[in-house]
């Protein structure tokens, strides 16, 4: 199994897609709850597996283009088939996933094996009928959106009009129509005329969940810009600019690096945005630009270790963050296979671990605690014992239920609320 690089539920929560470093997409489907055991929730089983992207070689630059899937985004379901977008660093693809459970039998010109029959031997005609067959799930690439990004794609986002979507790389954001693959509109371009003046890159972008003209993008300097596509074709001037003033007491050489936003997500309501930087998760009200309304410390005990984390490059890890269906709880990952949840209403938070060694299937997860001081209590883990190679960067929350998917390197964990 390869390292999982993205996790995403579809709009109903029936399907869960994962993308990995090897360019594969694996889709899980939730089993229908059986009537015999109404209390046993549906489990997720593998539904389809396909190779989405292959490694490529850019001959002009003599560089490899990785097949790693950076993001998967589902389209809302409009017919029996499922559609999703998957992207690597350079190319976005639209995949159609459909089921086939019947096949025609009784051809006149060929027999059951497919061999052609001798026409002279045919004495009567019959009408082929559809007979049930074993369920087969096929994935076919329906569109390939290529050659529009010079830099690495970090985000894709489907617009609420379901006709367009955007793809964002380090310096540019392009708007696509699903039907048109040889053209895209450039809507944001922050590339300076002189590359030597480059000091800021785009780190994530997302469309507003309801307003199809509005989107946000975050930067490596910890700022978020909200843009309105109605104002002009090129949205280089933002409609709103979100930035929190720097805390002078916490200033260090690493201040800018840890302020770089790794993920930005609209709430389901569309009223808030959540951003993740290296040490915190912040919730912003769209109507207030000068500071976030909530700030949650994910792993503040790392603040004194920033130099080491810079040394081993961990400081550049890009963690994602997610909302639950009702926007009341937010979740993000950390190190040592820990992930954190924050309840916005009760202000309570919990640290959980995704690990086979430390929890059995169907057992309730035990809250974990990292000890910072000298005295380490039993069951606590000290900061220096944390395993920084076990990072949880990608998580997903079911759109309506309390089911979460957590990617821990090359393992996928699915957790559910305990049923009484």
């Amino acid at each position, binding site marked *: 199994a390869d390292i999982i690089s993205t996790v995403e539920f579809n709009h109903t929560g029936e399907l869960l897609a994962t993308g990995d470093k090897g360019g594969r997409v694996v889709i899980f489907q939730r089993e229908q709850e059986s009537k015999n055991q109404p209390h046993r929730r549906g489990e997720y089983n593998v539904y389809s597996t396909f190779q989405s992207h292959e490694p490529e070689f850019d001959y002009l630059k003599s560089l490899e283009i990785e097949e790693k899937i950076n993001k998967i985004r589902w389209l809302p379901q409009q017919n029996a088939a499922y559609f999703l977008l998957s992207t690597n660093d350079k190319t976005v693809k639209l995949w159609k996933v459909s089921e086939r459970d019947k096949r025609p039998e009784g051809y006149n010109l060929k027999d059951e094996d497919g061999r052609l029959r001798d026409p002279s031997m045919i004495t009567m005609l019959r009408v082929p009928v559809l007979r049930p067959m074993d369920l087969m799930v096929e994935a076919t690439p329906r569109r390939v959106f290529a050659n529009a990004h010079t830099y*690495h794609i970090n985000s894709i986002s489907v617009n609420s009009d379901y006709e367009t979507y955007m793809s964002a790389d380090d310096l540019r954001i392009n708007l696509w129509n699903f039907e048109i693959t040889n053209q895209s509109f450039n809507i944001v371009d922050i590339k300076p005329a002189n*590359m030597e*003046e480059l000091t800021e890159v785009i780190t994530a972008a997302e469309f507003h969940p309801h307003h199809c003209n509005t989107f946000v993008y975050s930067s490596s300097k910890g700022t978020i810009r909200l843009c309105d596509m109605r104002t002009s074709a090129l949205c280089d001037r933002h409609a709103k600019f979100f930035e929190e003033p720097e805390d002078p007491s916490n200033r260090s*050489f690493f201040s800018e690096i840890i302020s770089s936003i790794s993920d930005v997500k609209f709430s389901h309501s569309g009223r808030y945005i959540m951003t993740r930087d290296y040490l915190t998760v912040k919730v912003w009200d769209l109507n207030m630009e000068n500071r976030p309304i909530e700030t949650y410390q994910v792993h503040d005990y790392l603040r004194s270790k920033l130099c080491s984390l810079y040394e081993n*490059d961990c400081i*550049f890890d890009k963690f994602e963050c997610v909302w639950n269906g009702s926007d009341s709880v937010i979740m993000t990952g950390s190190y040592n296979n820990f992930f954190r949840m924050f309840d916005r209403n009760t202000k309570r938070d919990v640290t959980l671990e995704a690990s086979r060694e430390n929890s059995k299937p169907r057992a309730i997860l035990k809250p974990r605690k990292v000890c910072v001081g000298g005295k380490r209590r039993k069951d606590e883990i000290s900061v220096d014992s944390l395993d920084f*190679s076990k990072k949880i960067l990608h998580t997903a929350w079911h759109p309506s239920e309390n089911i979460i998917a957590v990617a821990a390197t090359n393992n996928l964990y699915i957790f559910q609320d305990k049923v009484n």
Partner: protein
Amino acid sequence: MFVRGLKRKCFDGEEDIEGTLAGIKAIPSYNLQRQSLLDMSLVKLQLCHMLVEPNLCRSVLIANTVRQIQEEMTQDGTWQMINTQSTGQASLDRLVSTDILCRSSREQAEGKHVPGYSTFNKDFEGDQAQDSSETMSTASSVQAPRNLQSNVWEMENPQENKGNFQKSLDQIFETLDNKSPNSVEDLFSEVDNSYYDLDTMLTGMMSNTKMGHCDGLETFSSPTTTTSNSNCKSDLNELDHIVEILVES
């Protein structure tokens, strides 16, 4: 994976210019920490994966950090390199050695400005490509002892494990020395050339300067001119040659 050991003092906004003299202590002074951070950042910028494009966000963040340090050092008036001499044993989590050679009095008087680092050194990259992961770990542990005499930097390394890193660091500094003082912007002039504008690519115009990654490959081909004046045809021939080699390998 996380390195245990000495707890380092966190970088903070303290100004401690006198720290260098008082720095002959167990705890590295602010200036020394800053210097080692600068060195580490420079090394990080130079080491990139051979085949895959480096992460632009990471490069920008590191470059900004370097710029910030440079600015602060310029303001301080301490824009000079501190001599260090490595101890025999260099553990992974120590960025700085405990012994510090004081700066030469001449430099102090001149307030000499160390030239900023400039474009990638070709040989260095070629060497580093193979064992970038290893050298990353050694990078933090080894401080190349430098003896600043006028403008010549000599390697004075009594250590047993020279390794690629020492040689490369030496090469960086030699390059630094030869070029005129320049800011970190130069770094991106190289980066720029390796990222083609979609427009320029489509119009068939190849960028003038050579790309760092291609340099290694160019040694395979016949020594055609790889300067800005190489015509399209020779470029194509080279390209064919490169493709041939890649396909065969």
